[in-house]
């Protein structure tokens, strides 16, 4: 997968010199943040073997509710976002509970929800463009994709994060050693941490060449780290994989399967809302097309990243990679003014090709 990403980046860098410019990379980072946040969210329901087709329409709807509250009713942005977030949590909690209670396939329920959300969205915004802010100022809503962390603050944050990373690595190794468990060689752990720190610094330095770290990217980082910890380091995460891998065995093992899946949908609801806010802010207003096909981009990102639609397999890191591939493709093709028709065809082919490669490598 990294190889594929490399090929895509080198190709675009060669044919379009702007691709690697700090400005474009910053834009790419914001676009990535929107797709990847949603991908990481949908991962939570893909791992236990469910799916969600409604997230694109849901993102549009929840962004739309916030826009209407701000633009038409004059609410302060934080209150509007909070209310809309609450609506998102409620909707997805209800959907998750319905799916597990009546054992109806998530595909069907969320397909229905997709249509209903789309209709609800247009109803809410009365099918007219509804800006995220009144009269050209800026508010918390519009800042989601227009605020950049000042260069100095970005650097400080990067150093802080690197420090935390190093401390967590060292403490984890000590605990394992104290418990008598095996640890990877110290050199390898150092290299891994060092490479991670380098990556973080590189991103900050590139962004600082333009305006600094985009706020949207920080939101992605926060969501991705949280979900990573949730899936890999909590009982809840173990249960998600157990349900996806073998639900009957999960039940007999005493896992609260219904509660676990419902919780996954609840968290997804929150992430859909946040994604909706970012996507709407990025286009400046709720238009009837915000959120279109975003569910497919998110699912595609997860699948490219090695997630199994049958459940039981998938990781946050994989989903991020997948999202980066999809976002890079779209960004690069837009730079080259590729026709929209061609864009769709290329993205479709790359999706299938990437999964085919993943599957054939796995079989070896």
């Amino acid at each position, binding site marked *: 997968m990294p190889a594929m990403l490399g090929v895509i980046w080198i190709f675009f860098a060669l044919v379009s010199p702007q691709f690697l410019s700090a400005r474009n990379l910053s834009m790419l980072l914001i676009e990535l943040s929107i797709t990847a946040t949603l991908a990481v969210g949908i991962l939570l329901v893909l791992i236990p073997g469910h799916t969600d087709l409604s997230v694109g329409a849901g993102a549009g709807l929840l962004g739309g509710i916030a826009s209407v509250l701000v633009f038409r009713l004059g609410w302060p942005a934080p209150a509007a976002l909070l209310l809309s977030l609450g609506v998102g949590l409620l909707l997805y909690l209800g959907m998750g509970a319905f799916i597990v209670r009546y054992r109806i396939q998530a595909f069907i329920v969320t397909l229905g929800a997709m249509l209903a959300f789309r209709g609800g969205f247009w109803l809410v915004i009365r099918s007219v463009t509804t800006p995220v802010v009144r009269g050209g100022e800026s508010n918390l809503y519009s800042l989601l994709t227009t605020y950049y962390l000042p260069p100095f603050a970005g650097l400080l944050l990067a150093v802080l994060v690197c420090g935390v990373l190093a401390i967590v690595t060292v403490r984890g190794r000590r605990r394992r050693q104290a418990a008598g468990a095996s640890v990877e060689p110290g050199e390898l752990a150092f290299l891994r941490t060092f490479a991670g720190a380098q990556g973080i610094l590189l991103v900050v330095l590139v962004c600082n060449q333009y305006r600094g770290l985009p706020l949207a990217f920080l939101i992605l980082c926060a969501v991705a780290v949280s979900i990573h910890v949730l899936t890999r380091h*909590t009982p809840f995460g173990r249960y998600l994989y157990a349900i996806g891998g073998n639900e009957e065995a999960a039940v007999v093992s005493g*896992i609260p399967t219904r509660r676990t899946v419902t919780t996954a949908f609840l968290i997804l609801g929150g992430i859909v809302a946040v994604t909706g806010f970012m996507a709407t802010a990025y286009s400046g207003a709720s238009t009837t097309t915000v959120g279109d096909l975003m569910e497919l981009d998110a699912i595609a990102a997860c699948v490219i990243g090695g997630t199994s639609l049958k459940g039981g397999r998938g990781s946050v890191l994989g989903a991020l990679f997948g999202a980066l591939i999809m976002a890079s493709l779209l960004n690069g093709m837009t730079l080259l003014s590729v026709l929209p028709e061609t864009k769709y065809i290329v993205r479709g082919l790359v999706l299938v090709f990437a999964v085919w490669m993943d599957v054939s490598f796995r079989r070896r």
Partner: protein
Amino acid sequence: MPLLEARQLTKRFPGVVALNGVSFDLHPGEVHALCGENGAGKSTLIKTLSGIHPLGSYEGEIRVDDRPVSFRSLQDAEAAGIAVIYQELALVEEMSVAENIFLGHEPRRGPWVDWDEVRVRAVRLLEQFRIQLDPDIPVRELGVGQKQLVEIVKALAKKSRILILDEPTAALAETEVAILLGILRELRSAGVGCIYISHKLGEVMSLADRITVLRDGASITTVKASEADIPGIIRHMVGREIKDLFPRDRPASVGPVLLSVRNLDAAPDSESSARLTGIGFDVRAGEVLGIGGLMGAGRSETLMHLFGAWGTRLSGEVELGGRRYDLPAPGESIRRGLVMVTDDRKRYGLHLEQPIGYNLSLSSLDQVTRNGLLDEAAETLLDQGFFDALRIKAPGLDAVVGGLSGGNQQKVVIGKALMTDPRVVFLDEPTRGIDVAAKLEVYQLINRLTAEGRAVVLVSSELPELMGMSDRIVMLHEGTVGGTFLPAEYDPERLMAAAMGRTPVAED
């Protein structure tokens, strides 16, 4: 002239020699049994003979009708008349018995399937082997034993001359075993050759003409069944003597009642009629309660229901650890100290694609969670303790469970259950499909559990095991208690009579 002959087969996997110069032959009208512990090379031999390990991946020669053959796939072997009936059944649940029998080689009229012919021929085959099955009902409605019979008829419909049966009776009740063995004897007179793999040596002795024992990938001996005895076979299999097959240390005294069941009625769901009626028994600390009965008598359902994974309770009083327990659910049962090892370990017991450590701790994550986060160091330590105590044979905790042998998989399931520190342990067919040495380890484990003051409920289809390991036996018959027996009253005929619903007749 042998029907099938293998000469000096050697098959290597990375790091292991699975078969080491094994020679084997099968004559027409012969039942040739293959015995050996799990990992002895039986499965590899079958897979090589049936084309799953294709030509070129092994050394040696396979001959059918004294001509060398080269199988590149299972289909090649089937074309040569070899049919394999696996432990894991390969039937389509939604299709009828007749459709399954002819799946993949349906009789045709022009381009269309001739459904009348399918049915007629299915009926004829079922009658020929005196199997009482409705050819039109979907396979999903059949029990495991009946499915096994369908599987065999399916092989016979392909005009197979060589049948390979891998543990065909592992999931069968005694009556079904009798039907199956009857069919195999009939096939013998029809000139079909059978390779028969089973851990049930009594069955092997009564059915087989010759017995070949494999150990560590090598053929140890081939003997005529009429000249062999079970202790001798076991000695060859394990390379040492096993004196006592059922080493139960019966307790001098037992503790308080840990689980009490009275007048239990339960149904699959609230709309169905009761499948279990009037079930009642007590289980005391330090004892093994055995539950026997024929397939479909409700043994697994009883355990699954009490554990909270099957059906709806219609009435009855259940007390666990002295407290009423009316609405069982697996999570709650485990918290209250009741745990279950199910009979179908691949379906209910394991996450096959995950490592051993993941499986072991799955029911006990609370023990290793600090502030909401898993303490992976503590988890590894806990896993390692059970891994060592159960003597699981694997490279380490990171080994994927799907790659382990049946006995080691079973140890993982048992380890997962025991890690929850239960007071009452349900074991449903804990020794099914595992080898003699692993069985012995399970029996020793049962002794250790009761010595620690835990209670064990053991469900088994094998009467010798049930009699050997239980301190009391409840025989179930059609969802109700057919009789309860103390060790002094153990007698296979009386137990079977209770299982068949007949009142035991006094002997004098």
